[in-house]
């Protein structure tokens, strides 16, 4: 029982991180109709930037040797880089690809992926780097009174989950409450209309991609500090894809709920079903889960229904 709950909580915490990345997808898709495969590359890129800046800053200015200062500055710099990426993407590619097929846009983002992978490793090197933002590594034991031996929770996961939750909440608020957020939603609903009432499309897109960059950075930091910054980070995004479609491409709540469902489902399946199939099933389980769900509800949990008009 305790073990089950441990797994459950582990799943939930992992799920929050999925939600975080899924949110990156949803933001961009809502605003620009682009299914951004480069999200994973952005995570890696951001993490690399963060890791390397944190390493370089003390070397450049010994005065800033203090790890906290260094990390904060590095984070700021990395964020700046991600904004630059967003601007470049909009100016150089998206603005020239408006009204293209969804598939074409998707291909374009694959192009970004190649570019970012190449650029990241060219600028920041291709070894394994570590990010140390002072995440506590030691686990805590809770609810000993309830269960024999209690429930073991990794503080690191806990904190990251908390950060993710906060971030997700903020973004949700940002979308629902602020003027920019409303503008974003307007654009998402109808590009032409949004433009006609004077919402500057390019600005909006830059903002969205920057936000996505920010999300990617945070995700990168959390994952990076857990697994170390290396190429495999970019694969984390693939884990978020089933989340996105499960929740519905256009829905923020969908991204959150979907993340949790997948996170939990993945962990439980790995432990309770995996052994029967020879293990390692979590890589595809999430997808099959999403797939089966879509068969019931093609537009995902919270996505809009499509009606044929002829």
């Amino acid at each position, binding site marked *: 029982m305790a073990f089950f709950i441990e797994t459950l909580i582990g799943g939930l915490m992992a799920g929050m991180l999925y939600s975080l990345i899924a949110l990156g997808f949803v933001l961009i898709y809502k605003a620009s109709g682009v299914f951004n495969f480069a999200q994973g590359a952005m995570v890696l890129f951001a993490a690399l930037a963060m890791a390397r800046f944190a390493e370089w800053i003390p070397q450049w200015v010994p005065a800033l040797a203090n790890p906290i200062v260094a990390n904060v500055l590095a984070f700021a710099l990395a964020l700046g880089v991600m904004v630059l990426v967003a601007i470049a993407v909009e100016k150089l590619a998206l603005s020239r690809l408006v009204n293209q097929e969804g*598939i074409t846009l998707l291909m374009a983002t694959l*192009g970004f992926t190649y570019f970012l992978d190449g650029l990241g490793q060219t600028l920041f090197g291709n070894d394994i780097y570590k990010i140390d933002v002072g995440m506590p590594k030691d686990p805590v034991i809770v609810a000993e009174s309830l269960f024999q031996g209690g429930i073991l929770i990794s503080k690191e996961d806990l904190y990251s989950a908390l950060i993710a939750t906060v971030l997700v909440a903020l973004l949700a608020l940002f979308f629902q409450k602020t003027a920019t957020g409303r503008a974003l939603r307007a654009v998402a609903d109808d590009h032409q209309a949004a433009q006609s009432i004077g919402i500057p499309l390019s600005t909006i897109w830059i903002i969205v991609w920057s936000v996505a960059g920010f999300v990617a950075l945070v995700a990168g930091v959390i994952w990076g500090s857990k697994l170390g910054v290396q190429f495999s980070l970019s694969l984390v995004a693939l884990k978020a894809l*089933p989340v996105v479609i499960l929740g519905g491409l256009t829905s923020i709540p969908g991204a959150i709920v979907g993340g949790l469902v997948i996170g939990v489902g993945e962990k439980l399946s790995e432990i309770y079903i995996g052994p029967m199939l020879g293990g390692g099933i979590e890589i595809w389980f999430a997808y099959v889960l999403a797939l089966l769900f879509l068969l019931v509800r093609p537009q995902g949990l919270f996505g809009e229904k499509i009606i044929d008009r002829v």
Partner: protein
Amino acid sequence: MFYREAGQFKSTYRADQQILPIRQDRVAMALLLLTAFVIVPLTAPEYLLRAILVPFLILSLAALGLNILVGYCGQISLGTGAFMAVGAYAAYNAQARIEGLPLIVSLLLGGACATVVGVIFGVPSLRIRGLYLAVATLAAQFFVDWAALRLRFVTNGSESGSVSVSGLHVFGLPIESPASKYLLCLSFAVVFALLAKNLVRSGIGREWMAMRDMDVAAAVIGIRPVHAKLTAFAVSAFIVGVAGGLWGFVHLGAWEPAAFNIDRSFQLLFMVIIGGLGSISGGFLGAAFIVLLPIALERLPQLLHLPVSTAMSSHLTSMVFGVLIVFFLIVEPHGLARLWATAKEKLRLWPFPH
């Protein structure tokens, strides 16, 4: 400019509906085939055959298959690599388990298995559309990767899905020399291209395109979505599966699941998009582009005598590759086949602009 169509009139529907109605085109095609089947094998250096032409042909074949699904039926799939894998491993099993089974038969069996898997993973397309479907097809990709890695019977017992074949024969002829491999692949590519062309210009092809262009109208004129979509998945998966078999047997010889991972799926998708959705020649053009581009990019530093480390050059390659992809999508979203078509149109009207 080179066209002299005056006087080429058609007095039967047969003549009117042939694949290349214009005489000049037929001549050009004949020359092309002659070059490909006779001149190239005799003259081309080993490296060209082994490292460029063979992969080019096999990937063209796979792209051809994928194009039927994506370009003609409008169903996006990111799981192509998986179907190649199924084809390759199934063919391997056939060879390994059935004594003295002819290579061609094994390859076709591989294709058949891929068809089955393709149809299974095609079922969702009846409910799911567009990007949802695209992502859903990744399920196939990861599931097959996993299966090849973990399930013993898939790899006929070999560790971690790495298998190898040797001593290939076709009609008693050894498939060892690059030239023989090249000719085998070429024959497959040509035959399948012809069959595919016949399909897309027949009733079934029109069903697919109708589904793609306006599914409601298609249904109203009596086209069954189930039939149209699943046949597209089946045919596509079959061709892709056979290509997978060739990739494993003829090109690699020894391989593991990674040879058919998600990057392969993306690569093939690039080929059909850049080559041109909904055109048979598109697959070949796209494959040529995607195969040659990286090679060219890697060669470039050497040609310019730039001191670049291999790691660095591979990074630069992927950067430039990415940029070129995006650039290409911007300038010609309809692909090389469209470019070719417009060029041909111009030549036919020359000296008039339109």
